[in-house]
């Protein structure tokens, strides 16, 4: 039966790949179309980024001109200097770094432990916890902004304090962190745990010596994603904090509305703000893909 079904189609259509005389013309055009589509789409995807890049190097006469130029005539670093010396820029930079670093680190530690509990133990309420974590991730955060603002204001953690906003970021990053790390941990065979425990490891040692190192790529992917999330956030911090305690994104947005026509410095500010994210991404580009799959595909 199996033989019949396997060979029947082959008789009707002679094996194209093996005999080498396959429909060459069709594949060539197919490849050409595919490549053309890829190139065109890449241009659409990348052109706006290129635009920001070149605008940041244009002198004022050029970026304020109505005739767009696609290669700057006289490249200059003036815009970067101007952005760097703009009011509150450095302060926002420092705030952003502190808030992001603390939030990502906290989410990683808390999330790893929670993921361990969810992935390695069966206990009452485990399913409910997974569902709650998932459900929370599904609800747009804006719905919670009012009560959270109220709570943090009462606790005096808003305005000139960055504690409140850091806490909120940790809560924001947790679902993704737990979910992804859970996938990674679930992918580590339980037999490893058991073998180590037979050899005399305690449960704590198993977590510390076996699961933690094996989750390494997951931790990297998660922290990069968390970094991007926290670094790029600006709605919450803009709502909670006063102008002296914003991060760079919120600074950028405020400058966009208040100095909307200063394209050059604005774009330079945008470049500076994006650099850390791009560096992190390029450094761990491979791990990002595996991180995504671990969280998403492995059941």
């Amino acid at each position, binding site marked *: 039966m199996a033989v019949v079904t396997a060979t029947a189609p082959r008789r*009707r259509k002679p094996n194209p790949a093996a005999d080498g005389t396959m429909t060459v013309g069709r594949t060539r055009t197919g490849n050409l179309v*595919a490549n053309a589509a890829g190139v065109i789409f890449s241009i659409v995807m990348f052109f706006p980024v290129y635009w920001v890049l070149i605008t940041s190097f244009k002198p004022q006469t050029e970026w304020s001109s109505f005739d*767009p130029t696609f290669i700057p005539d006289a490249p200059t670093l003036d815009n970067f200097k101007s952005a760097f010396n703009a009011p509150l820029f450095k302060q926002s930079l420092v705030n952003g770094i502190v808030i992001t670093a603390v939030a990502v680190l906290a989410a990683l530690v808390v999330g790893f432990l929670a993921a361990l509990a969810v992935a390695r133990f069966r206990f009452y309420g485990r399913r409910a916890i997974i569902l709650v974590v998932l459900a929370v991730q599904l*609800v747009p955060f*804006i*719905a919670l902004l009012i009560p959270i603002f109220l709570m943090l204001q009462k606790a005096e953690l808003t305005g000139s304090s960055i504690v409140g906003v850091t806490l909120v970021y940790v809560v924001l990053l947790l679902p993704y962190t737990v979910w992804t790390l859970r996938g990674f941990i679930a992918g580590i065979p339980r037999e490893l745990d058991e073998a180590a425990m037979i050899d005399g490891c305690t449960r704590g040692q198993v977590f510390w010596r076996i699961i933690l190192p094996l989750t390494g790529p997951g931790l990297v992917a998660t922290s990069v994603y968390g970094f991007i999330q926290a670094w790029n956030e600006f709605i919450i911090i803009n709502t909670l904090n006063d102008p002296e305690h914003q991060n760079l*994104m919120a600074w950028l947005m405020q400058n966009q509305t208040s100095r909307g026509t200063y394209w050059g410095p604005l774009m330079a500010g945008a470049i500076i703000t*994006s650099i850390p994210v791009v560096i992190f991404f390029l450094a761990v580009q491979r791990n*990002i893909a595996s991180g995504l799959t671990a969280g998403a595909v492995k*059941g």
Partner: protein
Amino acid sequence: MRHGKYPFIIGFLVVPLALYLVFVVGAYLQMFQLSLTDWSGFGGFNYVGFDNFVKLWDDPVVWTALRHNLFLLILLPLVTIALALFFAFLLNVGGKSTGGGTRGVWGSKVYRIIFFFPQLLALAIVGVIFGRVFGSDRSGMINGLFPESWTPWLFLADERWALTCILAVLIWQAVGFYVVLFSAGMGSIPEEIYEAAALDGATKITLFFRITLPLLWSTLQVAWVYLGIAAFDAFALVNIMSVNQGGPNNSTQVLSMQIYLNAFKFSQAGYASALGVVLFFLTLTFAALTLRVTRRDAVDA
């Protein structure tokens, strides 16, 4: 061995659960409470029963906003997933099939980085960029491409097209992430399956519909959930890009924008909370439906 279980579980879960109890459960309870009040955002408040909900039922702006959310909820996942699938397939399987094996098209690594790039840009920056792309006179990037006799497209200032512009930007930003996500999924499909199908004479299109698509199904479901959430939210981009926060003439108004405006601009925090309750139940319904579909893959570890 089994004795040491609960101390670990409790120790591991106490911090995240505490955070959730305060910032999520507590916040929701407070939102429900506030939705029954006439609180302005400052000072005291009175309980007004379900007045806020009656008011929002009769509020035409809310219905407009909901219609726009629905528009995004349908089109954002559809278009993004279709584009991402096409390019992921191109990058992974679309190349020449030499010796029966499958390969991506030439330069697929470069494509992957380029496609992912928009994902790295903060929405604040995306807003700045596309403000220029969609400039409504000849200084705008798109209108600038046409000759001087051209009547410029208004883009974000045009009631009919403003929301479509925002949808385009949402897709632009999302596509790369899903190309990478689907690529990873396709990479885990064993080569032998493609080889076997190619030997049996399957074309690229057959390979896609008969092998890639079914084997990627669970990844597609995840993508659908993520994009659905993005469509329900959409706040950040509407906030930066639209004329007058949801304009012109409410043509880009979405529910989250209404919540924000009522809470922090119109001093109607009670009413905004009621809208939050509506958004909560809408998203939860969507979540429940999706979870039902994805249950098998998602919950059983």
